[in-house]
């Protein structure tokens, strides 16, 4: 493959993968079963990335394994309504066309593990997008390293990756024991789990945390929030939760008999501090409410519908719910989308507020229930942020309260 006998695309892909393997001392290449490509948004990969994809497609390159796509820079149906310049939309559509020719599945979601990807425990995969990597490794127990954009494409073309890092069982054991015993976890919302994840990522950096004391058992949506936030404040690619995640049925399994390097605890004080860091203004009158980072599940869209039922969103406030096309279709069938739209909100598919061109909207202040969104939005969009629970955001948006206040975790 490396010598070009399979053509330009495979030769390029293999040269990148072999070089990567050399850097990390990989012993061999291994077959992978699945790829999630993060290089899917024109706003992220720019003209050079588009050129790369178009060149590959022109060379008749084909993905060798099932490959899903992360978010797009536009909602492919509603981009005009979202005031996206048509020149920009055209670029994203060209990228979509190149991926279609290579055989990717057009999932356009950052949460492919909920709708779109079938991956199982113990499988070797190559995923990009930090929240998806953390979820696949930790919650599913599939195995992937953290892949940069464009390497994800190379892995899909080759169907192979160098074996190092998290593909090896001995590198998947926990390093830091993190006790959440002091937190009353029974009433935590997804937003609270995001705050918790943000604390954990900041505390452990690149190490593998083992969390104890999360009971009753968190839902998939809770774990999605936690994974996304931990991979935002740290480079967490894998975490274990004792009694919850599949490689941590008990402490011995999580640490694999290797010594615990460090012990920490997270309490209400740490959660409060993290929540404060995530807001640039403590309370205010947001004009842009962003929900669905990572993409909301059907159940989360249902929660929004219940909070908006029979209400009307303020005239000068936009409420945008980001999700995958698959979840949106199911939510529509359940009547949730209709309820949200009747209140004046939008349910958007395929995309992300950090990648959509928002220039035409002149938003000043965002309210969001996502720790990851709250972390990135000030730098990327250039906007103030109030980080708050979903209900707080929507109570404000529907005039049940005058201002939106930033989130503090409930005291015991």
């Amino acid at each position, binding site marked *: 493959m490396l010598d070009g006998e399979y053509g330009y695309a495979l030769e*390029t892909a293999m040269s990148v993968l072999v070089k990567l393997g050399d850097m990390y001392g990989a012993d061999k290449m291994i077959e992978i079963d699945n790829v999630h490509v*993060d*290089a899917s948004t024109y706003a992220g990969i*720019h003209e*050079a990335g588009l*050129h790369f994809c178009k060149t590959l497609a022109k060379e008749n390159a084909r993905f060798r394994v099932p490959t899903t796509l992360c978010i797009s820079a536009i909602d492919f149906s509603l981009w005009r309504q979202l005031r996206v310049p048509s020149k920009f939309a055209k670029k994203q559509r060209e990228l979509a066309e190149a991926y279609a020719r290579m055989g990717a599945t057009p999932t356009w979601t950052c949460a492919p593990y909920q709708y779109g990807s079938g991956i199982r425990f113990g499988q070797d995969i190559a995923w990009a997008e*930090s929240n998806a990597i953390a979820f696949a490794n930790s919650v599913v127990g599939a195995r992937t390293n953290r892949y*940069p*954009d464009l390497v994800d494409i190379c892995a899909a073309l080759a169907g192979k990756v160098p074996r190092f890092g998290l593909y090896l069982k001995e590198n998947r054991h926990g390093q830091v024991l993190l006790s959440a015993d002091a937190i009353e976890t029974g009433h935590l919302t997804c937003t609270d789990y995001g705050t918790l994840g943000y604390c954990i990522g900041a505390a452990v950096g690149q190490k593998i945390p083992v969390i104890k004391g999360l009971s009753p058992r968190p839902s998939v949506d809770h774990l999605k929030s936690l994974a996304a936030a931990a991979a935002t404040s740290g*480079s967490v690619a894998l975490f274990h939760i004792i009694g919850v995640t599949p490689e941590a049925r008990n402490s011995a399994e999580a640490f694999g008999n290797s010594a615990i390097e460090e012990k920490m605890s997270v309490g209400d004080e740490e959660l409060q501090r993290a929540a404060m860091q995530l807001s640039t203004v403590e309370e205010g009158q947001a004009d842009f409410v962003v929900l669905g980072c990572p993409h909301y599940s059907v159940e989360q869209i249902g929660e929004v519908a219940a909070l908006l039922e029979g209400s009307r969103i303020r005239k000068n406030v936009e409420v945008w719910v980001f999700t995958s096309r698959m979840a949106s279709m199911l939510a529509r069938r359940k009547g949730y989308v209709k309820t949200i739209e009747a209140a004046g909100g939008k349910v958007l598919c395929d995309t992300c507020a950090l990648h959509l061109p928002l220039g035409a909207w002149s938003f000043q202040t965002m309210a969001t229930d996502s720790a990851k969104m709250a972390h990135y939005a000030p730098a990327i969009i250039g906007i103030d942020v109030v980080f708050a629970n979903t209900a707080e955001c929507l109570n404000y948006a529907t005039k049940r309260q005058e201002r939106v206040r930033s989130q503090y975790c409930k005291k015991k």
Partner: protein
Amino acid sequence: MAGKAKGEAIVATRSISFWGGIDPKTGRIIDKRSGSFGKNISGKVFVFPYGKGSSTSSAVFLEAVRCNKAPAAIVNAHTEPLLTVGAILAMKLYGKSIPVVDHVETDPCEVIANHDLVEVDADRGILMVTRARRGKK
């Protein structure tokens, strides 16, 4: 990444993410916490401890190459695969060689100062620094 290059040094003493840290269209450093905000890396030998953050950095690096705004070479204490990948593809797609060197004996951010002339020969593993004022090292 192999290759030879020569240029004036730009030293950032903190880790940097190309995504949200460098504007690929101009080569300007836009990360206010990098310690080098506002400087331009285009055509320079860019010295910084290590790359961090977003996986999109590899694509931003490649875009800087396409726009002719990439550094002439990169010198790191530890290089992340993000940048190596960008450099490999720069050669493949645009025929441009941008040497990326790391594991230098001493911390490059301490040894090299802004405006020093740096010659990188990644093929032979040689890094030559000519002081902006004080002669050779």
